[in-house]
């Protein structure tokens, strides 16, 4: 037989420590010693101080028909609303010392603790609700109550007319019980159940649920006090100290110096990631210093509403086939509208993307899009990632369109922005392109210095770096700076050897892998070979042109905000600007198609550092404003 005790509440109070099976109204065989629940003993820790925590609402405490102590049929809620309630479900014949008797014992102890606090005492009602209506009549409950209720306390011992009336109430409280039967299927009178005691506030909300392991008078008393204190503070001012404006740009999960022993986290809280909508159309009337006018196609004029619609689509996770992925999951606003956390992107269901997510900043000026320059306009470009099986994985244009049109909010917006039209293949592109079109960023320290003629806008190292950029290092050969503006790109494609090395290098037998801060291990490549997919090839512009001489050529990216867009190169293979500069200093990676513009630069360490200083001065003045605006966008999670 299982552990079984027949004890009355009064008897119980004298128990301490280990108890043994006790023979009561049923003769029971010897039982092994049983350890009493924590509620019978000193709490093994200091109960958290009342008011130092909150007790969230766990849902409404349900109502039902019950019999009060006088046998009158009333609603349970008659006892709710004016006081804090400690509600337990019990039955008087319960013989599990750590079951119903524990609930009753703890309630009794709570009485003791609060006896000297009349104000609080008057705010509490204990309810012991029987789930054994056949035996626990109102008279039985009244009799049972006499053992427990202390003077001045409100403790109701309630029952019900029948199991059929009781069961919905038990179900509503998630109080499952099993009425035990013997081998003949006859009821034994015992009821197996999980002990549940509920703390309920005056709004009839459940605020805590205790079971045998948790139920203790110390914590129950402090929980009651916590509720009382929280109610009192509702009437006082809810002023909170304003927190300082957090830095917006940069990954919130800071990993710089991860390879060093001195690495410390500087992780930002996601709760503080919020923002305000900005006037993004301002860039049309007032192009940031250092940029040419924003090109806007005549057939897709900008409007505030269209940009807002495009923004909503850009951040909407429903735009992927399985609702997990928005454009912004790879083009993350605070991470330079790219991803600082991945060398090469990952798409729906974790599918492999071969290349690094390019930044969206100033994408409007690109004459050709994607690393391999395969697309010519933002309006068309959007369908690439939307339909790629390894990106957002939508099965068809039609499926995307119909999904958007089934969302009432979008239907209304499209009709408004596009003069009565529903979403279609063109206007979805127009809207998304319009948002990306206004993500322009300049007026950097460099722009102020060169175009704004502010001599102190850049520091000496950055100025020296600029001179090297346009001089000895000749970076400007591809990353152009014009007389009145700078896009830092020639819009052409070049072979730097990065792609070549990717395709032609042999897989190393041992890979050096950083597995924790400052902790490298030499991983046996063969050990993970069975888990690794076959790495997809990447031949660059050759995949578009079909011409052998175009192998491993990739588009020259602009350099604005480059400090925010790590890792670098089309495959994200270089982590820092220092390493990028060193890469070009050595003349790239030799191959028969290496661009002749690449050659060893013979830069000194100081010169390399100066170029990095220059590149670091290219961060636009409006990035935080664009990021804040992005944070304000809805993300389309299922509600």
């Amino acid at each position, binding site marked *: 037989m299982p552990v079984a005790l027949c004890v009355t509440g009064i008897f119980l109070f004298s128990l301490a420590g280990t108890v043994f099976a006790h023979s009561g109204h049923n003769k029971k065989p010897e039982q092994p010693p049983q350890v009493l629940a924590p509620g019978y003993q000193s709490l093994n820790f200091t109960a958290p101080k009342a008011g130092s925590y909150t007790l969230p609402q766990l849902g409404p405490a349900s109502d039902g028909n019950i019999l009060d102590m006088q046998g009158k049929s009333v609603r349970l809620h008659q006892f709710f609303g004016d006081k804090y309630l400690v509600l337990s479900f019990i039955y008087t014949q319960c013989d599990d010392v750590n*079951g119903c008797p524990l609930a009753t014992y703890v309630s009794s102890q709570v009485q003791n603790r609060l006896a000297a606090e009349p104000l609080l005492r008057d705010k509490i009602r204990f309810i012991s609700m029987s789930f054994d209506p056949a035996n626990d009549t109102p008279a039985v409950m009244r009799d049972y109550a006499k053992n427990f209720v202390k003077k001045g306390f409100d403790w109701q011992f309630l029952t019900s007319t029948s199991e059929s009336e009781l069961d919905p109430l038990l179900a509503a409280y998630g109080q*499952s019980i099993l009425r035990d039967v013997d081998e003949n299927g006859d009821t034994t009178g015992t009821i197996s159940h999980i002990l549940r005691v509920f703390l309920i506030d005056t709004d009839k909300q459940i605020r805590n649920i205790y079971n045998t392991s948790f139920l203790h008078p110390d914590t129950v008393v402090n929980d009651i006090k916590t509720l009382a204190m929280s109610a009192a503070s509702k009437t006082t001012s809810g002023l909170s100290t304003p927190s300082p404006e957090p830095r917006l740009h940069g990954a919130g999960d800071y990993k710089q110096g991860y390879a060093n022993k001195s690495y410390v986290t500087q992780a930002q809280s996601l709760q503080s990631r919020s923002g305000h909508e900005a006037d993004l159309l301002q860039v049309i009337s007032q192009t940031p210093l250092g940029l040419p006018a924003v090109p806007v196609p005549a057939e897709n004029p900008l409007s505030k509403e269209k940009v807002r619609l495009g923004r909503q689509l850009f951040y909407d996770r429903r735009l992927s086939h399985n609702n997990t992925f928005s454009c912004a999951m790879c083009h993350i606003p605070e991470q330079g509208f790219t991803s600082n956390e991945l060398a090469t992107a990952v798409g729906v269901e974790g599918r492999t993307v071969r290349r690094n997510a390019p930044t969206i900043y100033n994408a409007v000026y690109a004459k050709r899009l994607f690393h391999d320059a395969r697309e010519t306009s933002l309006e068309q470009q959007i369908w690439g990632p939307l339909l790629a099986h390894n990106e957002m994985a939508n099965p068809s244009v039609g499926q995307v369109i119909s999904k958007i049109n089934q969302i009432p909010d979008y239907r209304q917006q499209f009709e408004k922005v596009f003069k009565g039209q529903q979403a279609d293949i063109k206007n979805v592109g127009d809207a998304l392109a319009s948002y990306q079109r206004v993500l322009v960023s300049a007026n950097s320290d460099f722009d102020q210095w060169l175009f704004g003629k502010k001599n102190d806008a850049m520091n000496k190292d950055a100025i020296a770096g600029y001179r090297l950029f346009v001089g000895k290092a000749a970076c400007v050969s591809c990353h152009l700076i014009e007389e009145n503006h700078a896009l830092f790109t020639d819009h052409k494609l070049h072979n730097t050897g990065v792609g070549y090395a990717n395709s032609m290098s042999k897989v190393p037998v041992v890979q050096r892998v950083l597995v924790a801060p400052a902790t490298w291990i030499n991983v046996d490549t063969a050990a993970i070979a069975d888990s690794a997919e076959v790495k997809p090839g990447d031949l660059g512009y050759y995949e578009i042109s079909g011409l052998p001489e175009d192998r491993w050529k990739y588009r020259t990216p602009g350099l604005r905000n480059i400090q925010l867009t790590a890792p670098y190169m089309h495959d994200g293979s270089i982590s820092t600007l220092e390493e990028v500069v060193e890469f070009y200093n050595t003349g790239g990676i030799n191959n028969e198609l290496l661009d002749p513009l690449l050659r060893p630069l013979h830069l000194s360490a100081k010169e390399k550092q100066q170029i990095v200083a220059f590149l670091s001065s290219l961060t636009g003045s409006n990035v935080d404003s664009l990021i804040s605006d992005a944070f304000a966008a809805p993300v389309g999670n299922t509600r």
Partner: protein
Amino acid sequence: MKNILQRLTSTLCASVFGLLAASASFADETCMSPYMAKIVGQEDFIYVWTLGVEGVGDEQDKLVTVDVNPNSKNYGKVINSLSVGGRNEAHHSGLTDDRRYLWAGGLDTSKIFIFNVHSDPAKPRLYKTIDNFVDKSGGVVGPHTTYALPGRMMISGLSNDKDHGGRTALVEYTNGGQYITTHWMPTDENLGGAMKSGQFADGYGYDVRALPRRNVMVTSSFTGWNNYMMDLGKMMGDGEAMKRFGNTVVIWDLHTRKPKKVLDVPGAPLEIRCAWGSQNNYCFTTTALTSKIWLIYEDKMGEWQAKAVADIADASKIPLPVDISISADDNTLWVDTWNDGMARAFDVSDPFSPKEVYTKKIGAQINMISQSWDGSRAYFTSSLLANWDKKKSDSGDVQYFKAYDWDGKELKLKFAIDFVAEKLGLPHQMRFGAYSLYAQKRPQDSDVKVAASP
């Protein structure tokens, strides 16, 4: 009247389990909430939360029921398979405190499937699907552990909807599936009152366990969606991705749900298993990348500390310790190393000095282990994550459910089910089921219908 005894004791056990001496001969998986209803005697079923995979059967995630009662004529067979629609990266599952419902999370879509396992334990039904977890929680992605607390479930997230990185939260739901609140993992910017005891407060999450007697909740830290969803080979070669693993274990105040102390445990600490003995105030975890057993323990001053106490296999071979399971007497810790398919028994009678005492290759890869409370039966499944699992192997023994007997010296295979050959998918978390929990008698075998082979 064994069933009744089992059931009654099971409910009592819910109350006294954490208090009882280890000599009690209860039988159940040892790794669930210490105050949950328990099975005594022989379990009838194992519910296997199984990932759907393209090209296998109906390609959907599903809950697979395996009959594991040797007295059943269906012993060793799949008797039910319930597909839930879509691939959600089925991963972990957990029973509610009353064991009436099984919660099973999807790490990709962040859906949570709640199965009714009490109406007919042989044939779980889908009771409810939570599909707005991300919205309700304020952006938590990847519901991982579903851990029973009284009347509610504590769910540890792995990621977030902002950057698919590792910063995340614990999310609390009622047993009925109503969202309660979100407890964000402590970060440098918002430690939530916790002490950053070392260099790290990364805000990452993975597992959650509780020690009610010490008012302590413990969480560990893995990685975000980007990494757990991507191809393992690609990730190992991505220097940026490899920086995005958790390096922390957090000690929480269980009652207030407030973080108290952030401990440095570098290398992605995963599963947490706390000791059962009433004086054993410690838990084990293993680090996936650095391949170590860590002890998370309360010292003599009442301070919680973390200490690396043993190496697991050869780290350069990326053994990748995954699931662990502590025996009821706190003397043995099973550690499965995914990459080499080994189950390893460590003698942890001195928790500060675990010793590997037994090793057995279970398959080409291995992930989860569930052992009976008396330790005499152990079940293993193979799958870790859809895109980390082995695409090939010389033995072909990649995706399986296997049942073993353990006599303290050797694991003896009782039966195995090839989940790909059976067109089911990739088997992951196992939970035990039994008629006895719900006052039900096991039907005569002739009454039990075996699911048609898919």
